[in-house]
Structure formats: C-alpha cells, structure tokens
C-alpha cells in the first residue's frame, strides 16, 4: 500500500484546496461540505490535476452524496459534496472529461447538472427513465 506523502495536506491548503483532509486507504478525502464545484474544478485544472470520476451514493435520507475524484501527481483526491435537490452545477464546460461522468450520474441517480447545453443519455436511450440505481426492486 502506498503511503501518505509528507506535507501533502499543507501543499493542498497552500494550493487553495482548504478544508479538512484525511488520508485513508491510499486516498485523500476532504470532509463533505457545501462545495462550489465549479470553483474547485477550476482550481484543480489550474493545478494540472486529472479528472478521474464522479461517484454518487444515495444516503438514507434521500440525499445524494457526490465524490469528485481528481488525480494530482499520482495522489487520488476525493472532494465530497451532497445535494438534496438533486441539482448541481456542471463542470463539463471546464473539464470535458466530466461530460460522460455527468451524463452517467444523471442516468443512475437522477442528478441534474445545471448549466449544460444538453444532457443526452449515455448508457440509456432518449426517453428512458432516469435514476436506475435509485430503484428499490428489479423491474420484471
């Protein structure tokens, strides 16, 4: 298992990525907060970080937890936020790599990414219901 590099949190803070960071099982996790996802994405791109993924998780109170994952010099950073309204600003215009991730997250968790010109389905076809992973039972 790779180990936490020394002074990495300090370098994150100096890079404008504030908040509480925790090193856990080989990745850096920032405590969930009301994150300005666009400002954070702009900062990550300026740092030459590579967009990795958006991971959505449904919480028990119907809130959707979103982890934005970036790779910064080989370190995986997970920046968490959450939405109850299931609406969050897009970052696809800032980072084209996030385009497919946002389209997929909409299909799986019915999260609308606002500010996109259009959100074409990725895995499903036009007109198919969204929120596949929110279904509680297998549809027969």
């Amino acid at each position, binding site marked *: 298992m790779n180990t936490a590099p020394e002074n990495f949190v300090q370098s994150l803070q100096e890079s404008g990525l504030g908040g509480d960071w925790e090193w856990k099982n080989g990745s850096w996790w920032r405590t969930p907060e009301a994150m300005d996802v666009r400002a954070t994405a702009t900062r990550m791109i300026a740092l030459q970080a590579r967009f990795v993924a958006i991971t959505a998780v449904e919480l028990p109170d119907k809130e959707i937890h979103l982890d934005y994952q970036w790779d910064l010099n080989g370190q995986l950073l997970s920046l968490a936020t959450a939405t109850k309204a299931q609406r969050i600003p897009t970052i696809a215009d800032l980072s084209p*790599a996030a385009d497919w991730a946002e389209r997929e997250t909409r299909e799986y968790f019915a999260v609308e990414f606002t500010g996109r010109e259009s959100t074409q*389905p990725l*895995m499903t076809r036009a007109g198919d219901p969204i929120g596949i992973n929110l*279904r509680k039972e297998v549809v027969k």
Partner: protein
Amino acid sequence: MSYRIPIGPYHPALEEPYKLELICDGETVRDAVMNVGFNFRGIEYLAERRNYLQGITLVERVCGICSNVHSLSYCMAVEQLTGAEPPERALYIRVVLSELERLHSHLLWSGVAAKLIGFKTVFMACFTLREKIMDALSAISGNRVNYGMNCIGGVNRDIADPQAVLNILDELERDIQHIILPIFLKDRSVESRCKGVGILTKEQAMAMGAVGPLARASGISQDIRKAAPYCAYDRMEFNVPVETSGDVRARLVVHALEMVESCHILHQALRTLPEGPIHAKTPSGARFKVPAGTAICRAEAPRGEVLYQITSNGTDIPARVRVRTPTFMNMATVRFTVLGQQLADSPLIQASCDPCYSCTDR
C-alpha cells in the same frame, strides 16, 4: 458539401457495438458524434443487490479481456474495508495474473492494429503468441477468460509450477523481441502508415482525462503501478514507456515496449515467488459482513487506470459499487483524433485507443 456516414451500432466491420457518425467533407473527417451504451448491463446496480462474495463473480464479467483486474480491484477495495491482508505469495500471484492479462490484451490489440494497418501476417503472429499466454493462464487458473483467481484476502489457486510459466515466458519474450518489436518500432511501411495519423496532443489527453497506453503515447507518464503501487508492484523493477508524438505510431511503440516490461515483471515475480499461504482466513457465505465505510482502489488495467469505490453500510451487501473503467475516459478522445484525418484512416484511429465497449458500458 459535407455528408454523414453512420457506422454501427451493429456493423460487419466492428467487433463490438457502438455508433459513430462521421461528418465528412470529401474524404476528410470534420466532426464525429459517438454513441455508446449498447452493451449496458447495469453492473453497478446489480452489484448493489448481491453480497460481497457474489460481487466478485459479477465484476469479473465487466470485461472479457481484462476480467482479472476487475475482480482484483473489487477485492482490494473490500480488503481495505475489512482489514483482510493478503499473504505475500498471493500478492505476487496477483502480479503474475495481472501481467499475463496485460500481455494477452496488448497482443490482441497489436493483432487488431496490424490487421487495420494492412499487415495481416503480423495479425496472425500476434494471435499465435497470444495463445501461449492463454495456455499459461489456463494452466494456472483452469480458465482462458474469467480466471476466478481473486478472493477477498488473497487468491483461490496457487501457481504450482512457476518454472512451467517461465518456460512459456522465455519463448514468448524471444518472439516479441524478434517479431513484434522490429515491425512496430522499425518497419518503414508501418511507420509511413501510422506516423502523424490520429494525433492526440498532451493537452487534449489531459483535458479528456485519458489514461493508460493512450495517455502515455501522448506524453503523460502516469502508470498506477508506479504512481500508487498495489499488490507487489513496489518490489518490481520496470520502466514506463512514454512517447510524445501522440499519433498511432506512438501508441504502437508504447504497447510494444510495455509487453517487454511485462515480461521483465513476470520474470521477477515468478523467480522470487515467496513461500507461504495464498489467502487469509475470512468468514464464508452470509457470515461475511463488511464494516461500514468507503474505500477506493485503483489499478493499472491493460488499457489504463481502473477505479473501484465501494461503500458499505455494515451488511453483507454493498451500498454502492462504483466502477470507472479506462475506456470510459479514453473512448471520447476519438472525437479529437479523427478530426481532419482521412476517412479511410478512421478505423485504425478508432482502434488505436484500444477501446473496450464492454468495459465502457458495464
């Protein structure tokens, strides 16, 4: 006047289903629109409705080529949550399986690339070499496609005769050096067919989040085996081939040199295979529960970085299994690489990013 050429989703020239619409001006490609999802199986949805042990079998079927890396990443993420520590021998066996998988995947890609270049003799040679790897995988695991090797806390089967695999490897390494490398690195016909074709710049690769050999052919040096070592990769000595021209030829060179490095890793792992057990003891069946929490695991699949994020709510069924495959990031780069290129080159350009639609669609 521009015209649209729809290709796919089911087409005699394509082995896997996807749809590409090329907007052409004469013979020049001006834009491309891509549609995927024809292989969508809802693997993430299904993984959240099966217990952790059933999940291993499920995720191994994300892909028919790099099946091992999926079960490996899944198991490593669960091991982070449970604290199960695979024994040393298991870590080395995981490296062996991963590199054999990389070799047969790269040989498959090389064969497909050779066929599209118009060099069918090399296609036959690549697939003949690939059979040697398939034989080795079959001898170790009993299977040619889904190996069923990984379990939570280690591996299911031992490598009883490392020397037998080394013998196959010696033969393979010799053939790669004598057949593949001279053609992919030095042949003038291959060079003239591929040089300057389908360029993906470093800036484009970064913007699109490209990974693996595709990114390394565009000057991005990252390899997860080096950047964030897992299994026993921190004990292996190997180079990460990087090219900067970003064209199809650079992708050929990176794939060819990566095969050589895989052989080096396999020699080291098989010659220094530690003695001892192959898996840690874990509860079986419904008694297997995972403490609440979230874990992420990354691994370097043949096509690049794979990411698994698993969230546990403390039961025997995961609350969330996230699977981010390399082609999911790489496929969208085709839109850049075909722009301004000849229509006749587009099959080779599309294939040169080593796409796997099964992985992409999950």
